């Protein structure tokens, strides 16, 4: 028999708060974490707002801030999130002699994490010095003179996407299986799903899984603006993220970190820690369609949902709530709706579906894990978070999107969907533990 896998700890650093309860209450009261960009001056960009983590203080979480001093924003956030998650799960951090009953060679890490920002001053100054406008070519010697002078070795290293996992390893002493993946917006749902599989296989007793990412920097915003993927509703940031609405015009770039402690049921029982939920299914697929677009009929999305249902050994009839990817882009929300209709057939219109990105923005690599945490809260409180800003429903988007107000209903089984740019689809299913 494969090990059952449960969630025993959760932590988050997000635009709507730096702990799970603050985030959850904000979501239930329909608060928005979206506002004018302050990290850099974006006033002339097509999009001038985002969902930023505000007033985050790393030193509140660690007694060794010097170990994390070169961190990119995502790495810094994930330290705070993981300290919270470990505390809830009774896992000791920053100690050479942990007394939590978890063998460190069986404590793993799996993050869906993104790259850090370039060092803007050095990056642009080197290009300016090296670029020969007359000849339209780069003089690499001149480029290198500035680059070698201005770039800091550790600051450059910290841009690597495996760095958040490195910081978590130093924090927790984890010596178990450790991976970091980057499948764009689906990354941290994939990391949670694959981490569950490693515990089932018996490779680890517990894994710190989740994501960390910030693309709120000039080149990140440039990239998404050029793709016309972002909302440009600059006059009304708080109503800009409007998943499933007829007037939706793009997603809102967010940042943050979210981690959960996945643990084998036997380890959780042995340690006597509180079980928050059980993770029962994982499905993964790819669209193999176009670099720029999702498959028109949501083929890959439906396949991933079906794979997760099959893995969980449940029917589409058993699902109480779907936490949608719901990005507020024209494409995602209509294709995700189609995929839900394909899988849930006659029940599609009766299953509550919502997107917390309407309030939280899109945390990219960290989005899936942040959303998973809210799914656990939904089960705990038998309450579903709303889709805010849903005032002008598109006629073809006719599911029950929980518009604008949370809803109290019995919630036992929840699906969390994440679809990545490039066609990776990942779905996990969690269940009330009994």
């Amino acid at each position: 028999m494969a090990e059952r896998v449960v969630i025993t700890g959760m932590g988050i650093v997000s635009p709507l708060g730096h702990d799970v309860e603050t985030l959850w209450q904000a979501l239930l009261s329909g608060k928005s974490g979206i506002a004018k960009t302050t990290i850099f001056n974006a006033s002339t960009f097509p999009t001038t707002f985002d969902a930023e983590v505000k007033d985050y203080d790393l030193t509140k979480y660690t007694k060794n801030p010097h170990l994390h001093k070169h961190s990119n924003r995502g790495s810094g956030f994930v330290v705070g999130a993981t300290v919270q998650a470990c505390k809830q799960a009774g896992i000791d951090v920053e100690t050479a002699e942990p007394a939590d009953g978890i063998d460190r060679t069986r404590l793993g890490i799996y993050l869906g994490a993104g790259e850090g920002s370039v060092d803007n001053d050095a990056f642009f100054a080197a290009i300016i010095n090296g670029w020969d406008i007359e000849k339209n070519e780069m003089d690499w010697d001149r480029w290198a003179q500035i680059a070698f002078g201005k770039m800091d070795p550790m600051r450059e290293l910290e841009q690597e996407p495996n760095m958040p996992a490195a910081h978590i390893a130093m924090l927790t002493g984890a010596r178990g299986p450790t991976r970091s993946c980057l499948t764009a917006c689906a990354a941290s749902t994939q990391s949670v799903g694959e981490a569950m599989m490693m515990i089932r296989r018996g490779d680890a007793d517990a894994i710190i899984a989740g994501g960390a990412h910030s693309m709120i920097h000039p080149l990140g915003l440039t990239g998404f603006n050029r793709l016309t993927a972002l909302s440009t509703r600059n006059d009304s940031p708080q109503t800009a993220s409007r998943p499933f609405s007829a007037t939706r015009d793009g997603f809102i770039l967010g940042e943050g970190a979210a981690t959960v402690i996945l643990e084998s049921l036997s380890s959780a029982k042995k340690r006597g820690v509180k079980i928050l939920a059980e993770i029962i299914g994982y499905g993964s697929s790819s669209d193999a369609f176009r670099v720029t677009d999702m498959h028109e009929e949501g083929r890959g999305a439906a396949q991933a949902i079906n794979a997760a249902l099959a893995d969980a050994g449940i029917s589409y009839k058993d699902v109480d709530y779907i936490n949608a990817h719901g990005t507020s882009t024209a494409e995602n929300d209509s294709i995700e709706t189609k995929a839900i209709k394909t899988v849930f057939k006659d029940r599609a219109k009766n299953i509550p579906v919502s997107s917390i990105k309407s309030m939280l923005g899109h945390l990219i690599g960290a989005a899936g894990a942040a959303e998973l945490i809210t799914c656990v809260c939904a089960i705990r409180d038998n309450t579903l978070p709303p889709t805010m800003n849903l005032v002008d429903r598109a006629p073809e988007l006719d599911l029950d999107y929980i518009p604008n107000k949370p809803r109290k209903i019995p919630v036992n089984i929840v699906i969390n969907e994440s679809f990545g740019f490039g066609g990776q689809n990942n779905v996990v299913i969690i269940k009330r533990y009994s």
Partner: protein
Amino acid sequence: MSSNRVVITGLGAISPLGVTVNDMWSGLCAGKVAIDTITAFDPVGFTCKIAGQAPEYDIRKYVPKNLRKSIKLMSRDIELSVIAAHEALFHSGLVTKGIDPDKININPERTAINLGAGLISCDLVELAPAVAASITDGKFDLHKWGKEGLEMVTPLWLLKYLPNMLACHVGIIHDIQGPSNTITCAEAAAHLAIAEAFQVIARGNSDYALAGGAEAKVNPIVMIRQCLLGRATSQNNNDPKTACRPFDADAKGSVFGEAAGIVVLENFENAKKRSAKIYAEIVGTGQSNSLNPQYEHLEPDGYGLQIAIEKALADANIKPEQLDLIIPHGTGIPADDLAEAKAIENAIGEAITEIPLWPTKSMLSNTGAASGVIDVIAAVSTMNEGKIPAAVNCDIKAEGCNLNISNRMKEKDIRHALCCSYSYGGQTAAIVLKQPD
């Protein structure tokens, strides 16, 4: 828990030694060093001016006609992975849409892809005109950039540099609709990607998988990071052929390069049923973490790597002395090589003096996220050919290193081989391969 056996039924590699696996293997057998002065850009201002560059290729040969428009969205990392994937599938007997759309014999939904990828740097030359249009008083002006520079950036610019785009392009070309993941664990990425793909098939989620990795490190930004960290040698610019010296007393640092390697993994029963040529079986994987406050280096006692090796051996259910070959990560960075040597010695025990150890980076250079799969392909080749090529540039073993490195080609029946790797950042990985029955 029931588990499927997983075998390798296809190999593909483009490396500094050539555009095919055969080129690479004959180069390795001949002791050829593919490291030379960088020509991809003028390296005069760089502390390290040498690298392992892939030979010229025509990417259009590997992309079906109806998808050739997508070539302009391919960074070099993506191109390399597309070439390696084509070779791996072409020789596997599996026919995907990208090999021959009229003879497909593979179920796209039962096929997975899992590639290791690096932090892909954008093309600075492509970006420079937009930056040049955003200057005030000689300095970058973000205000101007938002108004004018940004508009000069090609609309799909970001898509060339997302690490998951390797798997995305390969997946579209070959119509791979099963699980797709991209592992971003630097130099351990390819081993971890193979380990995960192995598990996807073992647990029954897919019947086939393309697994491996690619990285084009001969790029100014990528190269300068290795120079700044002091990982790249600055003292061998005039002697590229003897520059990369894993475990050698005279080593001064690593030399970086570019490559892609992809293996076709397949459910054993499936491979047997279709009478496929089986190159090797994957019998064990192990992973752990190095914990070092100086995380750009492996911890001095190599413990995190030792754990990965021990786990891989346990997973394979073999004793250390059953290994016939070890291909180490062996970068040529003295502190890291010494730490790795300790990890291997401690994991293997007394048998270490008997088991041949063959580092490959002295010839192939350090190809980052591709390096692990390049070594897996090299190990599989030794199994199939029954010989271990001579190590190169390991003339006098570094003090404290007790590994059995031979400067002579050796005929040997390789039943089990171990490959291992680690990343700056700490992730460690090991894989045990077994000769087919």
